[in-house]
């Protein structure tokens, strides 16, 4: 028995020492990381200038109805009669017929303002984030349509699945206080 207690005494000492070391370690780690701590939490967002509208946003989100939707920066829009984000490459007629539109879900609406200007708006409920309109607008228009992560839908995964699949690395962590990167008018 004496041998046992001696052993347990040694073991117990070792254990206590290790315990103290681990407490100190955790405290140290916590303190170190706290000093580095940012005031803001981060959320995911798409850099619209890097995005090429490849279509992965619609298919790779963990949510079935993707959290990425198209946004319209009206200030950049040219209000064109023939909008390259609204109309497909060879529209049969210039009207809002489904056969003339790019959008597969009919989420863009076209309103006449005055000659020759039309306003185009996006219904988020219908938009699926496929980016076809973004591609058309970037290629031939002003690039006023762009994709953004909507934070009323996004679950803010620790590692965004779309970010992993993005071919251009357009996904970044941004501060949760200013979570949107909106395209603005650039003066050459």
């Amino acid at each position, binding site marked *: 028995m004496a041998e046992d207690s001696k052993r347990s005494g040694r073991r117990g000492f070792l254990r206590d020492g290790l315990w103290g070391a681990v407490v100190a370690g955790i405290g140290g780690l916590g303190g170190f990381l706290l000093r580095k701590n940012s005031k803001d939490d981060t959320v995911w967002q798409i850099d619209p200038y890097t995005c090429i509208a490849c279509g992965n946003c619609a298919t790779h989100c963990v949510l*079935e*109805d993707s959290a990425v939707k198209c946004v319209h920066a009206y200030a950049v829009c040219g209000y064109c009669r023939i909008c390259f984000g609204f109309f497909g490459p060879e*529209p*049969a007629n210039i009207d809002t017929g*489904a*056969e003339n539109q790019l959008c597969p879900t009919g989420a863009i609406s076209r309103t006449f303002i005055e000659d020759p200007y039309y306003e185009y708006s996006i219904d988020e409920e219908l938009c*699926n984030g496929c980016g076809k309109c973004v591609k058309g607008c970037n290629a031939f228009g002003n690039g006023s349509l762009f994709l953004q992560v909507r934070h009323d839908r996004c679950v803010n995964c620790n590692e965004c699945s779309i970010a992993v699949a993005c071919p251009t690395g357009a996904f970044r962590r941004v501060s949760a206080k200013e979570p949107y990167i909106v395209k603005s008018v650039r003066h050459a």
Partner: protein
Amino acid sequence: MVGSVDNNSVEGNAGDVFYRTAVRTAVLSGLFCLIVGGFLIYNYVMRTGADERRVNELDELKVEVQNKPDDEQLIARFRKLDLQVRKTRVRRLDFSRRGGYLLFGGAIVFFAGLLWVVSFRRKVAYPKGGIDYDEIQIRESALSRRSVGVGAIGLAVAGLLLAITIGPEFPTGASDGLTLSGGLVETWSSFRGLGGSGVYEWKDEVSSSWNGKSGEGIIWKSEVSLSGYGSPIVWKDRVFVSGADANSREVYCFDAVSGERLWASVLPKIAEANAVELEVMEDTGYAASTMVSDGRRVCAIFANGNVGCFNFEGKRLWSVGLGVPDSTYGYASSLAIYRNILLIQYDQSYADAGKSVIKGLNVLTGDILWQTPRPVSSSWCSPIVIKAAGREQVITCSDPLMIAYDPNNGAELWRADCLGGEIASSPIYTGEVVIGLEPYTKLVGVRPDGHGDVTKTHVAWSVDAGAPDICSPVSNGELVFLLTTDGTLSCFKVSDGSAVWEHQLKGDFKASPSLVNGRLYILSEQGVMIIADISAGFSELAQCALGERCYASPAFADGRIYIRGVKNLYCIGSDSKR
């Protein structure tokens, strides 16, 4: 298993009803979960199967509608299908969401039922006797040690297998130089070498004496099947030339060391592109454009607008037809390359016909990445790619503009209205100015750091000169040398365009002069290379006769000279180099 005695007495009669209820709940909710799960799986399969097919059908219908935009019935059919597709999408999303909740609810009931069932079937502990724990513990420790050891070894083996099969493809060591930016001294991979300058520097002496008839100084000579006036290009141990006649367009590859012809590949006919009859001037021929290489592939363009790309083994990677160019003397502009973009200066007809264009093709696939229309007339000179004023620029000359473009996207950087006539001399960049020529008329120097129309601001000087109509100029940074077809060699200062001296050479000249280790190498049509020192005026050092007519400018690589005669390709140098 817990205990070894099946103790049924735990479930008394009073508990029977509850037990049966528990079992029933579990079974029913389990079935419910299975059914809902089955529907969800069906939903998913439909989403990725039948729905996709309907979308494809819709795309096809769209094309039909575009072909017949006035067909009301077709449009109505399209709209009906489109509405169906959209409704289905929303329906599927709703179904998955609701199904998910139902499944969740069912699963809760199921697991609650299961736990309830299990709580009835708990067995009482009944430890077995006669177990020698000491022995078991010792054996278990031994087995565990072994299993950890085996596990560790197994992981190591698996890791090694992975390490052998998977790994980075790209070169992790020092670059082997074979990249899309080229520019090695061991290559002369475009018309007149790097930046189209015609300047060659080699650490040793470059041969300055040879004789075609006796064979002295000539390492090898190989016959080229079809003739062409394009220069040879060299990449390390391979030399490429292109040749063509009215029926066939071919690319040849020779071994730079032995001169053995490694392969000859044919460019196929491209039907629509060749629909128009092609007429070329005899002096231009069908393969006047020099090829270009990026170290992995070679590209060639021919007089009928066909462009072909081959890998170093001769396999044709792609070919496109740009359409027969409307060019009086036959298309002669050589190719240029910038990274993975093949640059083609496609000038035609007159400026107001609007046919001239510069194209950037993806050298990997042949797709047109960009094309920019040029408000210029036909030209027979070649574009050069330079880095100046902190930007990569491709400089082109034609009547009436010298235009610089961004090779990445074809955006115009600057233009200068300073040229005219039928220009076949390519521009050069001296480090200070870009020098362009207007045949018989003038020599201009333009600073390449401008934006937009720089006619009034960046034309450093413009001097009257009897400028050549075919040969391109060459410069050592301080002096620029011009050579006319009848042999008038003139020297001007780069700083202000002032004339320095003039010298008359004997012979006719189509090939452009080159500067090799600071000396002028000028090749005449008669096949004579005139080598001269220009440190203080013109001082002829040697004349080397090849014994064959030559029209193409020579190429220099590895300390050797590659000359293409009308029939043969020559490699000139001293054998001791290899």
